[in-house]
């Protein structure tokens, strides 16, 4: 038993020294390899963490949101619809939501204005998200003038800045009183942006949505499950653009590795010939080559995954920031609760380590089965 381990260690020693002999080539290969693993693992960590956060947070969202459509466009919904919806059996509460968008022409940022009757700010005061405070350089107590729908400026005092750890939910929010909201936007009385419906028994939600749709054919109910599914598809790293980028990355790596590994230099082929002529068996040569492959791929995998974890959860995925920002002026800064999904990491392991190992072993196997004399002479 001990002898077999010793033999394996000897071959491992030899594999490492043979890798060290071609230091430049192998170090550059290792760096590219680790980088690819790093990028993919970062995407996996980031999207998984956001997905989990979205799922847990959206549990607090309304069971059903009912919007009115006129000529295929969203239109404020009469609050009287809410009373009739509340009368549907199984609906435990209906409350109008009043929210809209405010575009600030100076910074070019878009803010979301929300009026809520739960813990509202004082008259002519607002609560603002930390993103708003950051971009508009506002502090508590400061006055801020918004441009109203009639062109007249409306001055609000900042009563509270929402805590920094709520940026994922409220970075661009401005919470305002309902009467201030209606005055600012000249929003029609008796109407709301949409209606939030709470259903007692969650199983009944689709039935109630169908009932609402039948009773009010000009409305569109949006289920909480649909909201969740929207976020699931937004963060689905196997879909869309991410898939395209990833397949290009993986494909080019496979080609790169194949090229590096298959182009057995004359020197390497000679080496295999010598090893065979001094009595190594084909199995030993293959073990040597697979150790060479494993040393590279295992190191690259572990380094790539660890650095990706640090990148996403300690440095807030700062490399992706530019890509995620797009053209938005206000970019929420949020920390993510780490999520490690062993299944995804295993898939990643086999996707990156597999092709490389095959690419190193196959050509060596072809070379190792050749007559040693011919190999040395070639």
């Amino acid at each position, binding site marked *: 038993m001990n002898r077999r381990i010793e033999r394996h260690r000897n071959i*491992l*020693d030899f594999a*490492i020294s043979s890798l060290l002999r071609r230091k430049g080539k192998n170090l550059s290969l290792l760096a590219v390899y680790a980088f690819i693993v790093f990028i993919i693992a970062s995407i996996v960590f980031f999207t998984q963490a956001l997905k989990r956060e979205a799922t847990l*947070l*959206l*549990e*607090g*969202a*309304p069971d059903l*949101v009912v919007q009115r*459509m006129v000529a*295929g*466009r*969203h239109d404020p919904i009469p609050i009287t619809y809410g009373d009739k919806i509340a009368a549907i059996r199984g609906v435990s509460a209906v*409350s109008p939501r009043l929210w809209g*968008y405010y575009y600030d022409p100076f910074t070019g940022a*878009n803010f979301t204005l929300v009026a*809520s009757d*739960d*813990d509202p700010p004082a008259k002519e005061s607002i609560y603002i998200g930390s993103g708003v405070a950051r971009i508009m350089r506002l502090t508590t107590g400061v006055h801020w003038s918004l441009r109203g729908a009639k062109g007249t400026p409306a001055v609000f005092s900042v009563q509270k800045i929402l805590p920094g750890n*709520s*940026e994922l*939910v*409220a*970075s*661009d*929010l401005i*919470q305002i009183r309902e009467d201030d909201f209606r005055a600012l936007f000249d929003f029609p009385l008796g109407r709301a942006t949409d209606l*939030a419906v709470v259903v007692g028994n969650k199983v009944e939600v689709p039935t109630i*949505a169908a009932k609402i*749709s039948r009773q009010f*054919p*000009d*409305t*569109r109910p*949006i289920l909480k499950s*649909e*909201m969740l599914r*929207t*976020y699931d*598809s937004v963060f*689905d790293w196997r*879909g*869309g*653009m*991410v*898939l*395209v980028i990833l397949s290009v990355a993986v494909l080019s790596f496979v080609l790169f590795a194949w090229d590096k590994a298959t182009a057995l230099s004359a020197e390497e082929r000679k080496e295999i010939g010598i090893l065979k002529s001094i009595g190594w068996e084909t199995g030993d040569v293959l073990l040597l080559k697979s150790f060479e492959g494993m040393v590279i791929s295992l*190191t690259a995998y*572990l380094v790539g995954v*660890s650095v990706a974890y*640090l990148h996403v*959860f300690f440095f807030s995925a700062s490399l992706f920031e530019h890509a*995620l920002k*797009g053209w*938005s002026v*206000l970019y929420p800064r949020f920390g993510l*609760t*780490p999520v*490690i999904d062993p299944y995804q990491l295993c898939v990643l392991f086999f996707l990156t380590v597999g092709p490389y190992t095959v690419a190193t072993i196959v050509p060596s196997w072809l070379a190792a089965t050749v007559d040693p004399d011919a190999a040395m002479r070639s």
Partner: protein
Amino acid sequence: MRNSTWFLTLIGTLLAISSLLVLHAAISRAGGGARLASNRELLRRLKLSDLCLFTEARYTRHPAMADRHAAFQDHPMALEHFPSGSLMSPPDFRREAP
């Protein structure tokens, strides 16, 4: 020292770092509970239905509320005008007002 010892030490260190990271994940998850609860409370209080991720346009700020005349709208990240539209299938829900 033997080459293999060096290598095994390296792998051992990397594995140790990885375990530390797994530990970190477990600890932060426990600590993140308070933040999560307060955020969920804020969401419930303001009856929000979306996360604040992309503030560029209405349908990226509130993807769940965006009008869903076509499947397109369900994926603010989708590239329908390009082949990936064929890689990603539209979600199977559709409920529309006329």
